[in-house]
């Protein structure tokens, strides 16, 4: 029992350090740093590099990594990125930090050790000194966690209460414009907050290293768990965040007392707790908002539709259409079977990415769980073919239909949430799907998944890569048509209206709830079909290929190519599949992380050009070729945040 409490407090302490840093940066800049875990990984890997690989002493390595590099990194990120984002719409901020989340770990692995170290040490390396306290054996790394959590917590509390910096900080938090008027420079306070926040991320990273090792996926998932503490603290209370962090850590270890030794429950329960807690709190906040009349912050679209200018003249559209069709038929002639297969699986991913174009691009709702809906399509189809002998195509369609209720559930739970909470809720669902649903024995099958053969229709097999390629293209075309139908119709106008002003949309008779649920439902079906095809191309539906962390990469890729563009989804899918294959075929292994890095950096660029690569390029060419029917100056639509009803 005591051992469990100690272990729970260790996790809780690490959560506390990480989540307090997150709250600090959030309250000072209103930017939720999704990349907190990635920063922690970066600093932890740097510490390992200096300490273990280069033989620096622990203290000099810690001083340089946490005391020098971390604050400089925080300052640099603030100066280059976050300062410019502070007044950007929440969606843009989220996408940029999600881009960082994707880009930083591969950068770290390229700069420092590329291979995952085995048993990396923390502040104390083996043999780790141990002491007995009240009959419990504590090792020095555990004590380091306790000391860090207490020192960080106390330092924050005292600083905020008693120093000029704290006073300024609270002033900035409560009223930024007022603070500016009173001669406080919010920039300095915010920069300092980012430096300290990054140091705390780094500290959490080094503390976590001996507990978890230096695997980037488990690292970031664990630190994503600390978001739950931030949600408990409602993004502003340091005290409740601290309490929440310790409570989560304790709950996660104490729960093992009541669980069976092995099996699904034992695997699923512990990692799921923070995300269940997060969803429960978010639902509660949603209900409270609802009771108060739902005057939530207005949603602002990441990408806006410019009426009248989005349509090229008919001859240009015919030309582009013909070019696309010719290219589609040329590609199988030009590529070897291997590369055609890579492209075909990319097209299948593109189908799933269309669901993001619909839900996030059209619906304006950031969804990080589309990959789980695709996974339900894939693994559901595999269950139906493997255990019930269904033919492949009906299995994929029925499994995609089964994804719809999950999509509806996500939508219903997150209906009343603002953009940030929506992102957190969908991320929680994605992690829960990994931990609790895809880990069921007959689905997971020791991570090998279940086989899902390539489809056949009326005796015609889509077994070769060429045939599968055309099948995937055909399905993509149908799904794209559905998305375009939605966009061009009254539903599209409705979604655009909701993105601008949910309140005004309701007063003209729009049931915004129903519109969101419908969008999520259609998106879930498209994602499910895409997931089914992705899995059937590779022949297996395996849980690791539908991991929540990959879903975050999906969003980054789609955003890069254009969240409002159907063609963008196709190119994003192909890029997602093609870039890593190209790199592993032609570039030395030490650059294997570059594609992921590029996906992340691409998303960061949306801070500059929110319409994505496709729209940007089309815009340039149209400008050059004078294809615009009329010159107008409203090319970039400034979405005015609709005023709160006074």
């Amino acid at each position, binding site marked *: 029992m005591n051992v469990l409490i100690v272990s729970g407090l260790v996790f809780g302490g690490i959560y506390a350090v990480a989540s307090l840093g997150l709250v600090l940066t959030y309250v000072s800049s209103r930017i939720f740093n999704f990349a907190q875990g990635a920063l922690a990984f970066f600093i932890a890997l740097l510490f390992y590099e200096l300490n273990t690989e280069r033989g620096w002493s622990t203290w000099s390595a810690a001083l340089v990594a946490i005391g020098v590099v971390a604050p400089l990194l925080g300052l640099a990120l603030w100066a280059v990125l976050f300062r410019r984002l502070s007044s950007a719409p929440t969606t843009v901020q989220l996408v940029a930090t999600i881009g960082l989340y994707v880009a930083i770990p591969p950068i770290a692995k390229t700069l420092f050790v590329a291979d995952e170290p085995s048993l990396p040490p923390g502040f104390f390396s083996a043999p780790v000194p141990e002491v007995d306290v009240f009959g419990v054996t504590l090792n020095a790394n555990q004590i380091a966690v306790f000391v860090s959590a207490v020192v960080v917590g106390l330092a924050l509390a005292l600083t905020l209460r008693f120093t000029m910096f704290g006073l300024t900080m609270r002033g900035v938090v409560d009223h930024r414009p007022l603070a500016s008027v009173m001669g406080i420079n919010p920039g300095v306070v915010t920069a300092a907050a980012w430096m300290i926040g990054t140091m705390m991320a780094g500290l959490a990273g080094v503390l976590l290293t001996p507990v978890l090792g230096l695997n980037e996926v488990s690292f970031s998932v664990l630190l994503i768990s600390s978001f739950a503490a931030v949600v408990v603290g409602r993004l502003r209370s340091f005290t409740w965040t601290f309490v929440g962090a310790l409570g989560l850590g304790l709950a996660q270890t104490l729960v093992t007392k009541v669980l069976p030794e092995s099996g699904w429950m034992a695997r699923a329960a512990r990692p799921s707790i923070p995300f269940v807690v997060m969803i429960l709190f978010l639902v509660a906040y949603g209900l409270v908002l609802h009771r108060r009349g739902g005057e939530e912050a207005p949603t602002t679209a990441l990408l806006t539709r*410019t009426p009248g200018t989005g349509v090229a003249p008919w001859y240009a559209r015919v030309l582009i259409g013909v070019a696309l069709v010719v290219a589609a038929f040329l590609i199988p002639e030009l590529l070897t079977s291997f590369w055609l297969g890579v492209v075909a699986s990319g097209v299948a991913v593109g189908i799933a990415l269309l669901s993001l174009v619909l839900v996030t691009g059209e619906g304006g709702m950031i969804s990080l769980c589309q990959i789980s809906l695709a996974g339900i399509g894939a693994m559901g189809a595999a269950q139906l073919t493997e255990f019930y002998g269904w033919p492949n195509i009906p299995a994929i369609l029925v499994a995609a239909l089964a994804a719809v209720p999950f999509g509806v559930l996500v939508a219903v739970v997150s209906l009343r949430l603002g953009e940030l909470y929506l992102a957190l809720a969908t991320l929680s669902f994605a992690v829960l799907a990994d931990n609790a649903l895809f880990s069921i024995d007959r689905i997971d099958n020791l991570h090998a998944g279940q086989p899902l053969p390539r489809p056949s229709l009326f005796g015609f097999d889509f077994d070769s890569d060429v045939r599968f390629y055309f099948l995937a293209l055909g399905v993509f075309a149908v799904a794209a048509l559905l998305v375009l139908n939605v966009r061009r119709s*009254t539903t599209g106008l409705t979604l655009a209206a909701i993105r*601008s002003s949910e*309140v005004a949309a*309701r*007063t003209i008779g729009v*049931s915004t709830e129903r519109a969101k649920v419908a969008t999520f439902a259609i998106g879930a079906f498209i994602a499910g079909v895409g997931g089914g095809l992705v899995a059937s191309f590779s022949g297996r539906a395996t849980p690791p290929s539908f991991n929540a962390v990959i879903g975050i990469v999906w969003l980054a890729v789609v955003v890069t190519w254009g969240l409002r563009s159907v063609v963008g989804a196709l190119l994003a899918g192909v890029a997602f599949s093609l870039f890593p294959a190209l790199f592993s075929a032609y570039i030395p292994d030490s650059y294997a992380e570059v594609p992921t890095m590029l996906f992340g950096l691409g998303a960061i660029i949306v801070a500059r050009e929110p319409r994505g690569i496709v729209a940007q390029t089309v815009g340039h060419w149209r400008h050059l070729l004078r294809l615009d029917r009329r010159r107008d100056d409203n090319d970039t639509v400034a979405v005015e945040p609709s005023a709160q009803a006074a």
Partner: protein
Amino acid sequence: MAAVTTNGDRSAADPPLLEACGVTVRFGGLAALDDVGVRVEAGRILGIVGPNGAGKTTLFGVLSGLVQPAVGDVFIEGERVTGLPPQERARRGLARTFQRAHLFAELTVREHLELTYRWLHGRQSYLRDLVGLGSRAREDGERDRVDRLLDNLGLASVQHQAASSLPLSTARLVEVGRALAGTPKVVLFDEPSSGLDSRETEQLASVLLRACQDEGVALVVVEHDFELVLGLSDRVDVLDFGRLIASGTPSEIRSDPVVQAAYIGTERVT
């Protein structure tokens, strides 16, 4: 429709189009509205005046469903709608504008009106839109209604422009057009004239009066321009610090000593 009467003293067969009884709203400890009641009949114009902070906008929030009152009820054509969300009230014939224009930045002027018409005439269906049957769903009723409103409001020349590119005065007219596009029974106008010059105000007033006379629309107008409201309205309610301090015809209000003391006096001074 059965005439549901709440007050025993009302004998008319037709209930008022819009009625609020005993509405109290508290923000924290402060009563933004304290036992306020208003009512308006078909084809009539009710003006609500009061200085800033008198509770006018909060009252509109309560009527349109954006703010839930702590005490009190709202009725549309005698039907109790107190707990219903804004969209349900819109479907029962209630439309409103906002003090600061809440336009849909990405939609054109024309699309604002079309969208409202389609939602309030049951012409929107997710399934039809998804399979491509609904995308060109235009009917003559919609075109006539939208064209006529655009003409009346002088918006025909900008109908294909994005709302985000419009100057403030035009944006206010679009809000009015959007409110009227769904053929509402009662429209709440929150400071319709603010941001408009005198010519635009006249145009707006003529559109409002026409809607009132031709279609029997009831109007509730919140203004702090005292003279404008007195000139336009059939009846005027005066709010001050969340309380209804006077109610009557414009001439009664003009001569009411309480109003003069509490409202006009202070207004002139500040």
